[in-house]
């Protein structure tokens, strides 16, 4: 087996499970600011010609994009790291005030085993900030729960006309480490 195949077979299954749920829930626009935790899901979305992928320069752009998509009859999702949640706060008025559905999948930093102290303040603030902004959150701690958790959040968003975020825990993703560089 080549190195490439070996690496592919080692990919975790949960990003593909989330991709499947996004498809079954009719999501057409996938906006993201890259994060290592979203790497595989971003690759899957780019490879899927039925999805429009929209790389952003800042996360709040995805809230506007999702509102515009809904105005036009499409569903969108925003993939972001936890630090990006802070960038979105003022734009959340589109959901709480207008009733635009919003689905976020947030890969967490600043919690389980975080080595970078600069990630901790926003990581710890994600849930209070989301809840204060009217966004419901669902924690995803185990890979085997990925499909059900994202599906539940998508139901709340698109059927319930609400804002919902799935928080993918750092414990599940594996804490980033620069130990080898020291």
């Amino acid at each position: 087996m080549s190195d490439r195949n070996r690496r592919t077979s080692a990919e975790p299954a949960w990003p593909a499970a989330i991709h499947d749920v996004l498809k079954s829930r009719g999501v057409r626009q996938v906006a993201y600011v890259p994060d290592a935790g979203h790497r595989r899901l971003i690759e899957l979305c780019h490879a899927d010609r039925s999805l429009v992928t929209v790389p952003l320069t800042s996360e709040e752009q995805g809230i506007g994009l999702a509102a515009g998509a809904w105005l036009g009859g499409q569903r969108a999702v925003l993939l972001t790291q936890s630090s990006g949640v802070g960038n979105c706060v003022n734009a959340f008025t589109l959901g709480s005030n207008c009733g635009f559905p919003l689905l976020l999948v947030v890969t967490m930093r600043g919690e389980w085993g975080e080595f970078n102290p600069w990630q901790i303040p926003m990581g710890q603030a994600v849930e209070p900030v989301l809840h204060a902004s009217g966004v419901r959150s669902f924690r995803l701690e185990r890979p085997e729960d990925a499909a059900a958790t994202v599906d539940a959040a998508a139901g709340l968003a698109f059927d319930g006309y609400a804002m919902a975020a799935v928080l993918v825990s750092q414990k599940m993703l594996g804490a980033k480490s620069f130990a080898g560089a020291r």
Partner: protein
Amino acid sequence: MSAPLDRRAVVAALLERRETLLVVAGLGSPAWDCAAAGDHPLTFPLWGAMGSASMIGMGLALAQPERRVLVITGDGEMLMGLGSLATIGAQRPRNLALVVLDNERYGETGMQETHTAHGVDLAAVAQACGFPVARRVSAPVEIAPMRGAVLEASGPLFFQVKVGAGASAPALPPRDGGYLKQRFREALLGSDALR
């Protein structure tokens, strides 16, 4: 140098016989200008979320590739969402046009100068971000060609329209966000709006 353009006249010209055009209006004076031209279910005026207008336009443009989408906003609102120009420039939605009514002022907060009063060139930023059309508009004779481009040219398009700083009479659109969203969807999507 000609007199600055009248923002109400510019917007009225853009929205006259608008037919299937979809419009997003940035908060403050641009939303009032659109209301003065005639409130319309296919105009989505913002009362908040400053900096979001152009991205709402892009989400709409991607969802409705057969329709023309026009974002009318102000220089302060565009400056807050400046990174959106990079995102739109990279995505290149062909059916999206941004018209920035540039009076070099924050009109709702006391007419403080924006960065465009200090040399920041929004059209040059849009051009550098890859917009195939990024022009400054400052003469009445340029308005009709701008309208023609908004309706037909391959985008994304960016027009920085230099307008006077004088205040216009208030003309307020509805401000119930749920109503604004749903009337837009019903007018565009018909019965699918309730799915």
